[in-house]
């Protein structure tokens, strides 16, 4: 949601795209066919934008600006070159209709070169990358309850771009690190023999605090501008509150009911084994991550902090507004796209070789009996891949490890993947495939996965 956190997000993206992206796709379902020409066009615009920006910075600190822009545009360019951006006509056109509802009534946005797309990314976020590229992650869209909420999120990201928050932040950063005061203080600390670490920590905190404060100010400014943009559209202004409330609790929310591993992986042929997920002794087991934190500190740890404060800042404006529509383009399509994009997220995790997430989302679909045949195929394929990875000692590069920031049911799956032995993985998958073989006999590619699972089991 926040431009100022773009660097963090980009780092996260980096981590994901570092994994080898070797797609070996089978015809699982007719996934959205991207418009590669459009994507190339957007990529070209990004490159041009970089050249313009570099030309616009003066000679002073040119090296610093170049280093930052190189990093920034490497990520943005990588994004447009990847399979993450959804440019398939159906989804793209829907999103552009909502975008047009905003741009057409806001003169400030007339002629904007903003390029707004959904992504196939699982994490619940939206980002204005600073050059006009705006990404609304499918991982956020699936939590939205109305088109008006989507419109507010778009307005917020457009506001960041319109208000020039990214270039402003870069400028402020470059000027700060080059300022005489900043350099003099670092020089003084560098020459200090004793207590230098403490002084440096305090100095880093004070400058970071300045940055956080600036970030909060940017968010508030973007919200205010987004309110003005949204107000003119005819969308329900109440969506601002519901969208921010949704963001506030998003870390503890799931679209589907928690995964019951013991149920989805229990077959007559290969019963589920409790030892795969049993709890073990752990260091500092009673430490609750948040127990010693104040309410403010707890909030700052959220993916989207300060939401209640942001609501409060706009409360009068929201309360004063009446009417407004929750849907203006297509309610049915909105609902359908949420389902389709969940499948896109699932498949993108597979493409990016994030196999634990691919398996998690596929199992959630199976449990919810939604797109069941796709889910079964996807699980069989994923377990076969996990078998290969584990056999070749590369499993650790394709699965997450347990984390307190993950949902409990995902952590249990990760624990299972960590403990299950190679022969058990093969046995489990073969039994799973057999259990669904009759129903899946005509599903393209399933027979190959079944054969592969059998081969692994017989090894």
């Amino acid at each position, binding site marked *: 949601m926040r431009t100022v956190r773009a660097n963090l997000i980009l780092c996260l993206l980096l981590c994901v795209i570092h994994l080898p992206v070797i797609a070996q796709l089978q015809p699982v379902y007719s996934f959205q066919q991207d418009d590669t020409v459009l994507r190339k066009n957007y990529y070209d615009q990004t490159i041009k934008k970089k050249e313009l920006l570099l030309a616009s910075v003066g000679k002073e600190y040119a090296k610093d600006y170049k280093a930052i822009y190189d990093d920034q545009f490497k990520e943005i360019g990588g994004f447009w070159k990847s399979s993450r951006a959804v440019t398939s006509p159906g989804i793209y056109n829907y999103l552009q209709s909502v975008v047009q509802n905003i741009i057409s009534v806001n003169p400030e946005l007339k002629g904007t070169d903003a390029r707004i797309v959904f992504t196939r990314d699982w994490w619940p976020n939206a980002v204005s990358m600073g050059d006009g590229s705006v990404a609304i992650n499918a991982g956020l869209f699936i939590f939205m309850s109305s088109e008006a909420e989507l419109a507010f999120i778009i307005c917020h990201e457009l506001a960041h771009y319109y208000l020039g928050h990214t270039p402003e932040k870069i400028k402020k950063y470059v000027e700060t690190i080059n300022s005489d005061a900043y*350099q003099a203080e670092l*020089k003084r600390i560098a020459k200090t023999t004793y207590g230098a*670490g403490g002084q440096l920590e305090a100095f880093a905190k004070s400058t970071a605090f300045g940055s956080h404060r600036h970030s909060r100010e940017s968010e508030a400014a973007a919200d205010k501008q987004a309110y003005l943009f949204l107000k003119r559209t005819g969308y329900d202004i109440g969506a601002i509150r519901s969208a921010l409330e949704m963001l506030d609790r998003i870390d503890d929310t799931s679209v589907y009911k928690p995964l019951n591993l013991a149920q989805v992986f229990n077959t007559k042929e290969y019963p589920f084994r409790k030892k795969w997920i049993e709890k073990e002794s752990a260091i500092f087991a*009673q430490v609750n991550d948040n127990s010693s934190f104040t309410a403010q500190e707890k909030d700052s740890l959220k993916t989207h902090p300060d939401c209640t404060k942001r609501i409060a800042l706009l409360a009068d404006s929201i309360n004063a507004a009446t009417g407004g529509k929750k849907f203006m383009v297509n309610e049915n399509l909105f609902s359908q796209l949420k389902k389709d994009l969940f499948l896109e997220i699932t498949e993108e995790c597979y493409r990016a070789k994030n196999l634990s997430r691919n398996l998690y989302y596929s199992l959630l679909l199976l449990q919810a009996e939604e797109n069941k045949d796709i889910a079964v195929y996807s699980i069989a394929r994923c377990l076969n891949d996990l078998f290969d990875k584990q056999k070749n000692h590369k499993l*650790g590069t394709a699965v997450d490890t*347990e984390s*307190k920031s993950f949902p409990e049911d995902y952590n249990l799956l990760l624990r299972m993947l960590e403990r299950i032995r190679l*022969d058990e993985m093969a046995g489990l998958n073969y039994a799973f495939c057999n259990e669904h073989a009759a129903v899946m006999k005509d599903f393209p590619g399933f027979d190959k996965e079944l054969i592969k699972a059998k081969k692994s089991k017989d090894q």
Partner: protein
Amino acid sequence: MKQRVLAAGLIALTTLCVQAQKLTIENVQKVALRNSDAIKEGTEVKGYYFFYVSDKIDKRTNEYTLQITDNNLKKLKDIKFQDSKDVTILESSFNGTDLIFLFYNEDARTFEYQVYGADGKKKHVYNRELTKKEKRYLAMSYLAVDDEEQTYKGLYPIEGRGFISNMPSREDRDYTFQVDYFSSEKRKQWTFTPTEGGKKLIGDYLGTYNGVVYFEVLKYGGAFDGKPDSYLLGLDLETGRQLFENPTDNAKYRFYPASMSVVSGKAVIFGEYYDPNGNVAKDKSLGFAFIMVDEKGKVVGEKYCSWDLEMGKYLDVSSKGKIADFGYMFVHNIIQTADGSVFAIGEGYKKVASGLGIAANILTGGRGGIASIKIKVTDMILLKFDKDFNIKEAKIYDKNSNSVELPNGYGTVSGPLLGKMVKYTFGEFDYSYSQVNKDNTSFTVCYSDYERGKNYKGGTFNSITYNEGKITTDKIQTKSDASRTAVLPGKQGQVLIMDYYRKAKRLDVHFEKLN
């Protein structure tokens, strides 16, 4: 050595940014990693710690940060404190709920044991002051060896209750050992230091069961005593009071306990046994013995498996205890699994002619400095005994042999003694470590090897895994496209692989399962 690789890797990460021309917070920050290691509960890795100097306070004082992570390397806590510049961490342990660290201040000659609870807060601190004599002895023994197997190290968890510490010590004229118990429940400690009047005593912790702490004690008459007397020592876990000290020898055999487990409510002590008149340092063992003892140290059952009779059915063993092509067997570990089966893990070695030594001696008229005989470290071996301690299986796991050149004069040393030298003096065995899971349903034996194949030439990290009755082997090639790869112990059945890419200045860290 591998811990140093870990440290080097982390330091590399923290210094990546030290290239800028103008000052940045990153290149002003100076952090020096002092120690890092895995935190274990028995043999299971439960986390890692990184102990570094985060600031210099004055001439004699540093600020330290002790970072504790879980076994996925996720940070659990940073503990910051100020202390003398001479402080290091020697050991750590976890007892299922509480964590202990042993801090050593070399200048002040003090040990400080800090216990942290499950809530992450410091619960108790125990102190010990070393005499100059003790410090000198520890410098030669406990502090001198820093290997993966933690030879001489000993901070053993008593589940949910505390920790037993065992380390070499000096008391009067004795070279002895000191046992300490540090409670984690309440502030309570006891110490036991045996003295005999001028003898050398070595204590080896075997285990704790039913309120009794069992130790194997070897008493040497002098520095060259090849027939140390062996005793089973029992201490009261509550008080540290000696409950018994019984000789492990009997009229027929001389028995040296190596490990212990609990079977059907009885403590069972395992080890090799020897001729009662033999020399343990030089003579071959006669086989394996399994002795059941009660809480008073009384033998309530025993079983002897000889090389000649029982094990000869499964292995081609000569009357001198030498296995064909395999050589002598050095026992690294003995493990009992949940179904009662016992596994002895060993490695082979044999004497062979040294071309280099012979040539050097010819050229220098016998003053070459290298013996004409060298040691060839051969294969791994796993012996399986059933719950009644009858041998059921013996399997040799092939690996490439490596040679150990010996200094002149070592050629006449007996085979069994050379095994101890290969282990403790030269450190040339390929065996790395063993890990057993908590319910003893699974264990993994890890060792290194080197391959010279068509498709791969380089080091390998190998494992033999027992899991619910099945044994599997696995191998990880440690030569990759990374500039440097280090394999470290991870959770049971897993290893931590660290690939450092020098050009990209990237450190990839991932856990991998041993299949």
